[in-house]
């Protein structure tokens, strides 16, 4: 699949209200290269949008743009949430940094952020302890944050973004530091919030988490949205073929294009890339054909269809982690 610029103009879900919209958004850091290029994105109530991309692609910057914190070179962020000040009342944001009042307890921290976002005092305690129980922080609620593990600080950060029940959640790598149980609990919370009408935009390298939750996936590379759509749309476009990447000694004679039933050599410019709809069952056939052709095999990598393969084909890069 060739790399192509695809403007993100996905229509709103039928009957749902648009919450935030980026139109032709271009941004660069002072005296730096462009970080976001021609970003068009609209997020509606109840949607879960995933940003997928390599490190430095612009995912975190896009989240900050949606917070309306960045002054664009051109374009704008608009929407019903942006006109409300302070934005923290309607938007929950959990970034990469886990900055807290380290000398205070987790409950005191969460209570502060709930109250800052406009939650009434009486209501705040109930919300804080309810969420602490859900994310597995109940036992640590009254411990000072400086004694927290990395994972506990990340949970607290997520809790603080969620506690005031915002209309839009912007989450940067939400599963980093979370154990599997907490990760599942977070998925449940996000799914429930989405059903209640909140929108979620999250940047993550956790493909399982994204596949589990995302209604829409945007693949971002070098500041551009290079592919977008629902999981099924993207995977349909990708096809169901399994790919084998075979590293070989370069000293071999020309190879045929087809290797038996439904196995095609699609690329021989570097490592040999075979494509088949028969899955891993075709591997022995490829293996024996290569040995017959006196090709010295150095290694084999299997690439099943999925988000990782989609990303690889769209950007030509591997996803980290």
């Amino acid at each position: 699949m060739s790399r192509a610029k695809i403007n993100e103009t996905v229509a709103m879900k039928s009957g749902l209200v648009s919450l935030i919209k980026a139109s032709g958004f271009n941004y660069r850091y002072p005296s730096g290269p462009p970080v976001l290029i021609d970003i068009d994105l609209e997020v509606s109530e109840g949607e879960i949008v995933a940003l997928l991309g390599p490190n430095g692609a612009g995912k975190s910057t896009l989240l900050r743009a949606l917070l309306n914190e960045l002054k664009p070179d051109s374009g704008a962020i608009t929407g019903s949430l942006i006109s409300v000040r302070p934005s923290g009342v309607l938007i929950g944001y959990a970034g990469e940094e886990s900055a807290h009042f380290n000398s205070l307890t987790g409950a005191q921290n969460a209570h502060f952020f709930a109250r800052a976002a406009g939650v009434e005092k009486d209501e705040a305690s109930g919300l804080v302890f309810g969420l602490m129980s859900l994310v597995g922080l109940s036992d640590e609620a009254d411990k000072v944050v400086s004694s927290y593990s990395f994972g506990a600080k990340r949970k607290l950060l997520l809790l603080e973004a969620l506690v005031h029940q915002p209309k839009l959640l912007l989450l940067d790598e939400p599963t980093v530091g979370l154990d599997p149980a907490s990760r599942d609990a977070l998925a449940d919370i996000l799914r429930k919030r989405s059903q209640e009408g909140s929108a979620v935009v999250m940047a993550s390298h956790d493909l399982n988490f994204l596949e589990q939750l995302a209604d829409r996936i945007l693949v971002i590379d070098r500041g551009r949205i290079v592919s977008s759509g629902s999981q099924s749309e993207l995977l349909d476009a990708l096809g169901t073929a399994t790919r084998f990447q075979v590293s070989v000694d370069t000293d071999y004679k020309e190879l045929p294009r087809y290797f038996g039933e439904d196995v095609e050599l699609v690329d021989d410019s570097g490592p040999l890339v075979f494509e088949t709809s028969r899955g891993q069952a075709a591997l022995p056939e490829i293996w024996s054909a290569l040995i017959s052709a006196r090709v010295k095999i150095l290694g084999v990598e299997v690439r099943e269809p999925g988000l990782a393969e989609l990303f690889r084909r769209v950007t030509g890069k591997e996803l980290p982690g």
Partner: protein
Amino acid sequence: MKFLVVAIEFRRALARPRLLALNVMVPVMLVLAVSLGGAPKFHAAAVYTVLFILFGTFGSSIPLVRDAEAGLFGRIIRGGIPPSHLLMQRAVGGGVIDGLQLLPALTIATLGSVSLNEWIMAVLILWSSVWIANLLGNLVAALARSLAETALFSAVTALLLLHLSGVFRTPLPDSSWALVEALSPFQALHDMFLGVSSVGTRGEPLLGLFIWMLVLPALTVCLARPIASSLGTAADA
């Protein structure tokens, strides 16, 4: 208006009892050393004024830059507290906490020299001066890109204003400096210590204090967004 930031500043101060004790004990030790050491009264007043003002300025600017570098300052603003509220409430909370921590030192410095009414006036002048020092620390922090720069800028700014307030000079009542001193923020505190030290007061020392109590908060509110932006940039750097 909710005073969440003031409340959290109090909680943070109380959550660190060792630091709280040090912040009380160090000024007490210094004031004791000066008052018991037979320093000339004019010099003693200068030392007290410098000590109390630097306490307020450093106590405001350095934690602010540290919070900004950690990303906490940005998180609080994103969380729903407007920059002007955050900076003003930090200064109010910091001023009250600094004032309380300096109260024992002030009491020792004024012991046996003032009536109860004069002591209450001294406390009010102390709190006002330290509040101004805290506001000054906020503004200075916006210019700094590191803790070292913050300490340097805080010291330079505070010492310049202390100089303009006449702290490091013999009073010159008939010169143009007298007007500058009257309009400077810390003359009131210095004169209070001079009065305590029985050297006598000069002119209308509260004028400068009142002017700065109006100007600095207004400046803080007007510049809150650029300050927040600058501190955010520092955090990103």
